[in-house]
Every structure is written in structure tokens, then in C-alpha cells.
């Protein structure tokens, strides 16, 4: 099972110059920043890459200014929003051919969903390596049963049942973290 170092601890270690902690912090929030840029603001890859690098450079340079290490996620979210908006205002976004793709304002529903998705991915850290890998490869990386089976040296015919079992474990992990949401059917952040 993966060790789940709280993000706040990673921040403290980054501040102390721990390069491994920085690499892990980037890894942990890379999907989040990428998703906000590409789904929340619908930036094309070229601009999303600029935003991605600028966000992490700002995080690195300004980590000392973060007052509460527990607030790293909303801080990164806010930085990403600002950098995306700057990018849009700079007018350097690639020309949009389909008017329906025009996103002057962020898609707030998409950003709320990205926050929920980050909670789920954090909960996946509490699963076995095997479960986490199978769920990520199938749903987030869109890999086939055959590819997953080949990569993880598992019979392809067992992947579907493993996915189902791992989803149950993930649900238990989430409900263990957030029992009020499970009881009320609502969204409660802890």
C-alpha cells in the first residue's frame, strides 16, 4: 500500500529544500492543475503547458508565503485560476474554430467536479498498489483490459472483476474518510 504523506507535510519538506518532496508535490497536484487548465478553462495543450509550468514555478517560488500548509490545494487552485485568466487575457490562446468551445469564464461545474475528483484520487492512495494501478489505468488512462493485464501480468479475464472489487474498496475508503457524506447522501468536506 502506498504511503500517504499529507500534502501539508510535503509542503514543509519542500520548504526545507527536500527535492524528493518537491517531486512528489508536483506529481500529486499535476493532474489537478492540468484538469483546471484543460477542462475548467478549456485551454488548448500549447497554452495549458505554459500555464502548467508557470503555476508550478510560482508555487516553488512562493511556497514561503503560504501561511497555512493545510491550504495548499485551494492555494494551487487559486494560482491556477489566475494564471489561466492571465493567459486568456493575454490573447495568446490558439484560435478557436468552434464558437461553442469559447470559454471566457471558467466552467465552474467542471472545476467543482475536479475538486471532487481530487478527493477520490487522494482516497485511492489508501488502496493497495494493485487496486490503485488497475483503477487508474482503466478509468483515467483509458487502457484496455488486455493492456492492463499485460502490464500488470494479470489474466485479462480477471480485470473486470478486480475493477469491481477495487471500486468497492475505494467507496469504503471514501466513506471511512467522510462518514457524514455517506449517511446524508450530501457533500461534506472534512
Amino acid at each position, binding site marked *: 500500500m502506498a504511503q500517504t504523506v499529507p500534502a501539508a507535510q510535503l509542503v514543509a519538506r519542500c520548504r526545507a529544500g527536500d527535492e524528493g518532496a518537491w517531486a512528489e508535490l508536483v506529481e500529486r497536484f499535476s493532474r489537478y492543475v492540468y484538469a483546471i487548465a484543460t477542462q475548467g478553462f478549456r485551454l488548448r495543450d500549447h497554452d495549458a503547458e505554459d500555464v502548467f509550468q508557470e503555476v508550478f514555478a510560482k508555487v516553488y517560488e512562493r511556497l514561503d508565503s503560504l501561511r497555512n500548509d493545510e491550504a495548499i490545494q485551494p492555494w494551487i487552485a487559486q494560482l491556477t485560476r489566475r494564471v489561466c485568466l492571465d493567459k486568456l487575457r493575454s490573447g495568446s490562446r490558439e484560435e478557436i474554430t468552434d464558437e461553442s468551445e469559447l470559454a471566457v469564464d471558467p466552467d465552474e461545474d467542471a472545476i467543482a467536479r475536479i475538486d471532487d475528483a481530487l478527493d477520490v484520487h487522494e482516497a485511492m492512495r489508501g488502496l493497495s498498489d494493485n487496486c490503485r494501478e488497475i483503477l487508474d489505468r482503466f478509468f483515467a488512462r483509458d487502457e484496455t483490459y488486455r493492456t492492463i493485464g499485460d502490464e500488470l501480468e494479470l489474466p485479462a479475464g480477471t480485470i473486470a472483476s478486480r475493477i469491481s472489487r477495487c471500486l468497492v474498496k475505494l467507496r469504503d475508503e471514501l466513506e471511512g474518510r467522510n462518514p457524514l457524506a455517506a449517511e446524508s447522501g*450530501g457533500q461534506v468536506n472534512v
Partner: protein
Amino acid sequence: MSTYDEDRLSGLIAALPPAPEGWVLAAQELPFVRTELDAVVAKAEADDEFRRALIADLEATLAREGYEPERPLVDALRRHFADS
């Protein structure tokens, strides 16, 4: 009733696909370019001609001075000169 049914969970896992590997690696290298960044900035502050050359053509000037003009360093210098 759980809020985390299979459809919702699978959708939320899928909502965070991995960022391109090269982007992640470049961001992870930031601490390693810090020393080079500080050296280039110090030289630019001490040498006007070098500073002008950097602003005119960052990558070529870095290469001429023996630095690898890789993205984290180039981006950091662009931000530095844009802010200064």
C-alpha cells in the same frame, strides 16, 4: 444510500487523467535550475551587455554562455526579466 456509486466513482477517477509526462518532469526539475538561474541573474545584473543579449535572444545567449537552454531555466528567466 452511498453517494459513491460505481458510475460516480469511475467518472471522478476519469476526470483526472495524467498530465503529459514531459510537463511533470520539467516542473519537478525546478529545484535543479535554481543554482543556474541565480548565476545567470547575477551575471546579468553585473553585465549590461549580457543582460541586453539575454533579453534579445534568451536561448542563444544561454547556449553561448555554456548553459543548457532547457525549459525550466528559460521560463524562470523570462519571468524574472518580465518582472524586473
